[in-house]
């Protein structure tokens, strides 16, 4: 028999805080994590709002002896490393007590932007004020010497999982999934697969991402469908609402500790829930047809009846297009208005946390189980006939049933679904 896989810890660094109690309180108070960007002056950008983490200093989360490595970590790496420490604490797991070859790491990561200041001196030396001009001869001769030698290491996407493996002596399977906004759920799926095939006892999974810097935000403003509701940041992220006008970028990290049931029970761990089904695919026409099959598969391979599902934790980009095909996929599986099966969209609180998003979002459902209550989706005021699903708004949902479904989609057509069972 294949091992069962349970979740025994979570570490979250989000625009609504990082202590689990604080995040819950902020949800209860109906707070939004979206605000005008404070990390830099966004005034020249069409989108000036984001789900931002206030006052983050990695030193607060990392042991003194481990701080040397912080100099080669860009912000997404630091976020993931710190959230990992929180997750291990929450799980009550000391990695030194796990067989190091049976402890693995699979994280989702995105494209990491170079910090502009590091390139400044070299750029100044080799440019002449004209757009698109760089004196390459001079760059080779003098520019390189003006750059910090470890520059590249700060921005490699595999460094999230790499640093974590070093800090916690995790010698087991290690991978970095770079699959846009679906990355962390795919990472979770892979970690689940690794545990099921017996290649590890404990897997750390999730992701870290931050696009809240001048370069990434400029790039996103060019090609991503961002909200421009700068006057009302807290109302900007409104998944499935008729008045939605685009996604709100955000930053964060979310890490889960996944363990085989046997390992968790042996050490007497508290258990948040069990991962019971997973499937993924590519909805190349972005019609929802493949998404529906993926969801169906995840439910089927868990051997669960759809009626046992308590709620759907949706992707809910808050963009005009993607919400439509996600809703179409959901409606195809669960029927029109999905038979009043509540849909919750966490992005309404903090925007799109990128490669960390799906796992941060599903963590709220896990917390909801613990409290017996699921928060409403924020900013859902005007139902959109193009999104014929039942979005839970304005009231808390009493969470009784035993399963919830997490859905993640990517703007190119990537999709994944995972099913979780409440632990009793």
């Amino acid at each position, binding site marked *: 028999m294949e091992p069962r896989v349970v979740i025994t810890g979570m570490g979250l660094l989000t625009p609504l805080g990082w202590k689990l109690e604080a995040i819950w309180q902020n949800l209860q108070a109906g707070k939004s994590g979206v605000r005008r960007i404070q990390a*830099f*002056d*966004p005034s*020249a950008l069409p989108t000036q709002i984001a789900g931002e983490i206030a006052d983050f200093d990695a030193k607060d989360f990392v042991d003194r002896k481990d701080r040397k490595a912080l100099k*080669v970590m860009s912000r997404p790496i630091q976020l993931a490393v710190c959230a990992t420490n929180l997750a291990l604490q929450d799980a009550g797991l000391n990695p030194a007590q796990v067989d*190091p*070859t049976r402890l*693995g790491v699979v994280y989702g990561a995105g*494209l990491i932007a170079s910090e*502009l200041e590091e*390139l*400044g001196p070299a*750029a*100044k030396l080799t*440019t002449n004020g004209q*757009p*698109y*001009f*760089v004196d*390459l*001869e*001079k*760059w*080779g001769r003098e520019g*390189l010497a003006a*750059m910090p*030698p*470890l*520059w*590249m290491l700060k921005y*490699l996407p*595999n460094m999230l*999982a790499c*640093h974590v493996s*070093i800090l*916690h002596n995790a*010698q*087991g399977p*290690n*991978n*970095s999934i*770079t*699959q846009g906004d679906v990355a962390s759920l795919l990472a979770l799926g*892979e970690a689940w*697969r690794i545990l*099921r095939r017996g*290649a590890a006892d404990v897997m750390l999974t999730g992701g870290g991402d931050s696009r809240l810097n*001048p*370069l990434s935000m*400029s790039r996103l403003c*060019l090609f991503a469908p961002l909200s421009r509701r700068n006057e009302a940041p807290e109302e900007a992220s409104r998944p499935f609402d008729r008045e939605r006008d685009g996604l709100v970028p955000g930053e964060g990290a979310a890490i889960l500790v996944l363990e085989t049931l046997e390992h968790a029970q042996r050490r007497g761990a508290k258990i948040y829930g069990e991962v019971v089904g997973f*499937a*993924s*695919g*590519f*909805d*190349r026409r972005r019609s929802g047809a493949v998404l529906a099959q993926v969801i169906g598969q995840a439910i089927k391979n868990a051997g669960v009846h759809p009626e046992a599902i308590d709620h759907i934790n949706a992707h809910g980009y808050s963009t005009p297009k993607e919400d439509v095909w996600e809703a179409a996929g959901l409606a195809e599986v669960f029927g029109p208005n999905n038979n009043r099966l509540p849909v919750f969209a966490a992005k309404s609180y903090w925007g799109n946390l990128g490669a960390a998003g799906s796992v941060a979002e599903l963590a709220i459902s896990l917390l909801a189980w613990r409290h017996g209550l699921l928060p409403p989706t924020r900013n859902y005021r005007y139902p959109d006939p193009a999104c014929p699903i039942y979005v839970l708004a304005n009231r808390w949902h009493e969470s009784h049933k035993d399963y919830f479904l997490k859905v993640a989609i990517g703007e*190119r*057509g*990537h999709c994944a679904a995972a099913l979780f069972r409440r632990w009793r």
Partner: protein
Amino acid sequence: MRRRVVITGMGVVTPLGHSVDALYRSQIEGRSGVGYITHFDARTFPTRIAAEVRDFELADYLGGDAQKFEDVGANCRFALAAAKQALEDAGVLNGGVDRRRFGVYLGTGEGQQDFFAFISLIGRCYQSETQSVDVRRFTELALRELHLGREREQEPHTTVAHIAEYFGLEGPNYNCLTACAASSQAIGEAVELIRRGEADLVLSGGSHSMIHPFGVTGFCLLTALSTRNDEPTKASRPFDAQRDGFVLGEGAGMLVLEELEHARRRKAHIYAEITGYGLSADAFRITDSHPEGRGAVACMADALRDAGLRPQDIGYINAHGTSTQVNDKVETLAIKKVFGEYAYQVPISSSKSMIGHLIAAAGVVELIICVMSLRHGILPPTINYEHPDPECDLDYIPNVAREKRIEHALSNSFGFGGQNVSLIVSRFRD
């Protein structure tokens, strides 16, 4: 019994040929694909050499459809061409199989950053006195000058999306980026997807090009590249005592991986079976290998266990063999630890001596070379092997190819950051 996974299609774009046959022929002939960098003016860089892909046109593979990919980078172009070859080779280009059961798992690198646009922007906005950037001006100019399409294509998930979309593959879709282990890891995890029944076919492999100003700058700064600029074809010399760093290569490799019964039902040609996959992390340091080769030992042993093979069953090892001082020494040590006395008998070679280091794409291309070696019974050499290193004292098939019939080959890939992967391919037997 677990589902068996076989290779039914292969395709490559490399510095030594844009087809599997051309690549293998040049490997057997021991040719070097290394020369002076032509993709940009690298004359003043500490390293001016690389193994570049030459004479490559996407239209040769996609015809008029190549126009659809105007904004995509080299990475994605190479991947599309290699994927087309592999799918055609497997006879699945025009459907006939269930799209939903056909996944894609790649290890492709990030797209290339627009060096000239980006650096010229920073140059105008950096204030030396305060060592800071005028962010308002930067963002203003960035919106005006950065190219929407090319910026979008830099995201690391775009290549795998283009491939799935263009070829109509709707199954599980992943991209992993574990530096130099990426495409090997992609293949290993794709095998697991099929074994576990999440897919019946997976297009798997990788592509990468870091031969651009940012890539070469980054590696030069880390002093990782060979600086043997006067003798480009001699620069990549794995296991030779005078090795002084790796040589960048570029390209792509793709495999069609298929569940055995599925392949049989449609009477597909079977190249070989993937029987072993091992992975581990060094968990030691960011760029230094563990001095005892801990991670490399673990993943080779793991792959053997997965395949149910003994060390003596392996007839050939395609080494990671980067031509850096440390890698080649530690890899040699690790092979000795896993293979014992037999380490001195098993032929080992490094394809990187000829095609350089294809980074994310290295693993898949080297695995394809293993498959061809299985089929043809000729093992490619390690070229430029001239000065024995007492710490590298195994049989590296120096300079000349060798005839040997083998049943199983093992390929190693070790990533910057400590991810290690070993794959074993075996002659297919019922």
